[in-house]
């Protein structure tokens, strides 16, 4: 019964909505009835939306449902129908060079590059590949499309085939279908492009139009072998393609590049450049040009959005224009919702208050629009180590505040709360402590040995907090994570507090903690000693490590091989030699290990 009810409600709503939606609405209606049976499952979502969302929004949901239902049964013509509700990102795609939010110079650069390639007859330019890199949403592909249409060229892209899942393939294998990975297909594509170029199929009558090849998504690679194949294939493309080609790379510059795939992409870029491709890096779009675009959209949509909000959205987007536009769209939906709520609860005055509030408090509240900001580890470390402060205290002390003695008081920080930065950088406390310990002394004044002591004492505190984790089972994670963040906080604040006269900032490289190497090396030595430990005392007993380290090893060094040669019976000598060989072998493997680890770190 309830099911039916909801359906009735829906269809009535649908009718309301259809007024807004002019001619499409009536087509939707019968379909909504057809799909009742499958809709049953989705009832909760729809009925809640009925109370909370505007009609407009709801129809959007309905449409989604339709798509879900009907794309399954091959009615895909309807998918493009919801034109009024189209995403603004698609709707306000830049059509002319002026509308492009990308920096003029960059656009010009890319444009001239293409112009030259397209005008010139074949074979003049050796390098026909342009690599465009940039963060997500800076308008890389938009720029290409706009420029292409400006130049009257067609953009051809690699149509990414639907990947075949392995299980699926196994299921189909009886039918004789061959399995090709995405990478393989890409290789085939590149091969064809290299050999035959793009054969224009539809343009027969006119003169041959100019063509730009756009490679937007490179196939994912897993493991070194696949990566190597992709690299080689792109190499060949760079060397031999005759069509101006743009390869787009999305940077993940801000996040840690520890991610394997991100590192691969970087390597790929480098290798492309080294083989002669041109490179243009798109910077994140400036707040101003995002704002301009947003205002333009607001005008066209007849939305009344205050400058403050646009400013905020633009700032929070972090240079990602796609994100900014979507945020704006979302924001423009919102007033309806707030409005409907305000009918029940708030007076307009209170609403206004509510609206002003986030601007003032300025953190957390506005996250609906913003991306979570991330900082790279080095960025965060730099903030802590450089320790930038206001030049003089602007805070007036209230009477309630107790005054701090002068030696404990510090000028206010020119940054967010350290814990927040830590949080944004997603760094492990142990790592942060290690890096701070390694680098902080560089940032101290030469006279400030007292500061050095304060610092190292705090770092010691952090170490003790971290050490308390030792031996606890991974199951008691909560206590552990609190301890960890406390440790990081102590380390960071200790460093900030301890450095009482921060040097004026100058260039410093941040080293990786040597401690890691030391720990590894001492572990190796220890193993080596353990190996020697038993032969060392053939006399039925073993020595403790410290005895080995402090007394035996120095003596062995002093005595050299004479210790074995002169005093040993022959068979023992042989035994010793074998031991030594073992050790040597291990040393080699350790060297390798160390080298590996070095590599790792350099990539940091």
């Amino acid at each position: 019964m309830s099911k039916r009810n909801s359906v009735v409600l829906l269809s009535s709503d649908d009718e309301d909505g259809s007024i807004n939606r002019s001619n499409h609405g009536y087509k939707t209606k019968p379909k909504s009835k057809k799909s009742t049976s499958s809709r049953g499952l989705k009832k909760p979502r729809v009925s809640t939306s009925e109370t909370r969302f505007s009609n407009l929004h709801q129809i959007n949901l309905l449409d989604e449902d339709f798509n879900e239902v009907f794309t399954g049964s091959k009615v895909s013509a309807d998918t493009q129908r919801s034109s009024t509700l189209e995403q603004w990102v698609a709707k306000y795609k830049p059509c002319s060079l002026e509308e492009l939010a990308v920096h003029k110079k960059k656009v010009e650069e890319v444009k001239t590059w293409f112009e030259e390639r397209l005008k010139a007859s074949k074979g003049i330019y050796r390098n026909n590949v342009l690599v465009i890199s940039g963060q997500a949403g800076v308008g890389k592909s938009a720029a290409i499309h706009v420029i292409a249409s400006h130049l009257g060229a067609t953009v051809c892209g690699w149509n990414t085939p639907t990947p075949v899942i392995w299980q699926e393939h196994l299921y189909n294998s009886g039918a004789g279908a061959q399995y090709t990975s995405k990478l393989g297909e890409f290789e085939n594509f590149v091969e064809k492009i290299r050999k035959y170029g793009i054969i224009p199929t539809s343009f027969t009558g006119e003169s041959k139009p100019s063509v730009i090849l756009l490679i937007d998504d490179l196939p994912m690679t897993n493991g070194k072998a696949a990566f190597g194949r992709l690299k080689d294939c792109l190499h060949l493309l760079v060397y031999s393609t005759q069509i101006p080609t743009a390869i787009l790379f999305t940077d993940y510059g801000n996040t840690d590049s520890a991610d394997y795939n991100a590192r691969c992409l970087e390597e790929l870029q480098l290798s492309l450049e080294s083989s002669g491709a041109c490179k243009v890096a798109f910077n994140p779009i400036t707040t101003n040009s995002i704002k301009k675009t947003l205002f333009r959209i607001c005008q066209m949509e007849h939305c009344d959005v205050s400058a403050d909000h646009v400013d905020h959205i633009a700032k929070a987007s972090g240079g990602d224009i796609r994100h900014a536009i979507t945020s704006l769209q979302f924001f423009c939906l919102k007033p309806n919702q707030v409005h409907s709520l305000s009918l029940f609860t708030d007076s307009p005055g209170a609403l206004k208050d509510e609206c002003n509030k986030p601007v003032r408090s300025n953190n957390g509240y506005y996250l609906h629009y913003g991306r979570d900001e991330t900082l790279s580890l080095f960025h965060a470390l730099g903030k802590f180590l450089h320790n930038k402060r206001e030049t003089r205290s602007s805070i007036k002390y209230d009477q309630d505040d107790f005054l701090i003695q002068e030696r404990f008081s510090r000028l206010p920080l020119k940054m967010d709360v350290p814990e927040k930065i830590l949080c944004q950088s997603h760094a492990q406390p142990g790592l942060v402590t290690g890096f701070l310990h390694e680098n902080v002394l560089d940032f101290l004044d030469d006279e400030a040995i007292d500061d050095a002591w304060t610092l190292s004492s705090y770092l010691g505190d952090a170490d003790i907090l971290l050490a308390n984790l030792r031996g606890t089972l991974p199951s008691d994670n909560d206590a552990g994570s609190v301890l960890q963040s406390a440790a990081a906080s102590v380390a960071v604040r200790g460093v900030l507090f301890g450095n009482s006269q921060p040097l004026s900032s100058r260039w410093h490289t941040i080293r990786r903690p040597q401690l890691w190497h030391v720990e590894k090396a001492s572990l190796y030595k220890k193993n080596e000693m353990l190996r020697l430990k038993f032969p060392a005392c053939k006399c039925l007993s073993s020595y403790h490590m410290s005895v080995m380290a402090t007394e035996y090893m120095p003596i062995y060094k002093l005595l050299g091989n004479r210790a074995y040669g002169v005093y040993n019976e022959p068979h023992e000598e042989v035994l010793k030699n074998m031991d030594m060989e073992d050790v040597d072998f291990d040393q080699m493997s350790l060297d390798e290990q160390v080298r590996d680890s070095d590599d790792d770190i350099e990539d940091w």
Partner: protein
Amino acid sequence: MLWVDKYRPKTLDQVMVHDLIAQNLKKLVTEQDCPHLLFYGPPGSGKKTLIMALLRQMFGPGAEKVKVENRTWKVDAGSRSIDIELTTLQSANHTEISPSDAGFQDRYVVQEIIKDMAKNRPIDTKGKKGGFKVLVLNDVDKLSREAQHSLRRTMEKYSAYCRLILCCNSSSRVTEAIRSRCLNVRINAPSEEQIVDVLEFIGKKEALQLPSGFAARIAEKSNRNLRRAILSFETCRVQQYPFTNKQAIPPMDWEEYISEIASDIMKEQSPKRLFQVRGKLYELLINCIPPEIILKRLVYELLRKLDDELKHEVCHWASYYEHRMRLGQKAIFHIEAFVAKFMSIYKSFLIATFG
């Protein structure tokens, strides 16, 4: 074979330095079943030697037939099982391990091994005593609290099947509960005269000409550590023979290095110097010199060069940071903090006295 091993007394009768203790131990073992034993004393005083001789006394020459074995124990710890790898030294009648090598998992090791031993105890062949095995545990003082607790329980539970011989440097870090369950044997560091005696004994056996006073000088340098005395005696022999009276006794390289660090610290007190010192400390740590020993030696070297006025304060901070080092995980943080503190104290002292 090094002289230290070559001239190690094999039986309790041969013991030269702690002969009284050796005699008592002999009586103890021959008369009846022996209790748990706890040997403690400074390094190089002969604990291990006594233990080995004692084992020989108990089980005869068979105790000397040992084999080295790398064993892995699977331990169930709540929801998961841990693999612990340890090197053991085993004969038919005894097992020797250093549980502290297992790091913070030491508590599992102790329990597991004792249980294991209790399971496969030797068959009582002659129908009399001897139906027990001996477990020699090194560095009991390095065991964590938890491990010591679990050791206490297992000691009682399996006391019918096995005897424990514990060995450590300082009994103060062994819990009261364990100490009271053992017969405590304190092994003093040998006096310099005793060391000279031993050195002369070795010299005679090796048919060496010992100039008068030479052995005394080695003994003096050895810091009452017999093992060290013998080792440096042998080094001298390799470096230069026949001995001369002026012959230098080679110091340990790490000790020289630390005294170098100490003079670095005294020369300049600045963050830059602190950074250099850190590099040198790393060097020591790479060579597995235990951080406690580094700190101790460093303080010793610093105190030698220091004004009396400051000694008390420096000692205070040294012990403060030594304590924190034990609480903490990465020793370098704490040693460095001590060095920084010392620099800070010393610098203000210099400014106060010389302006």
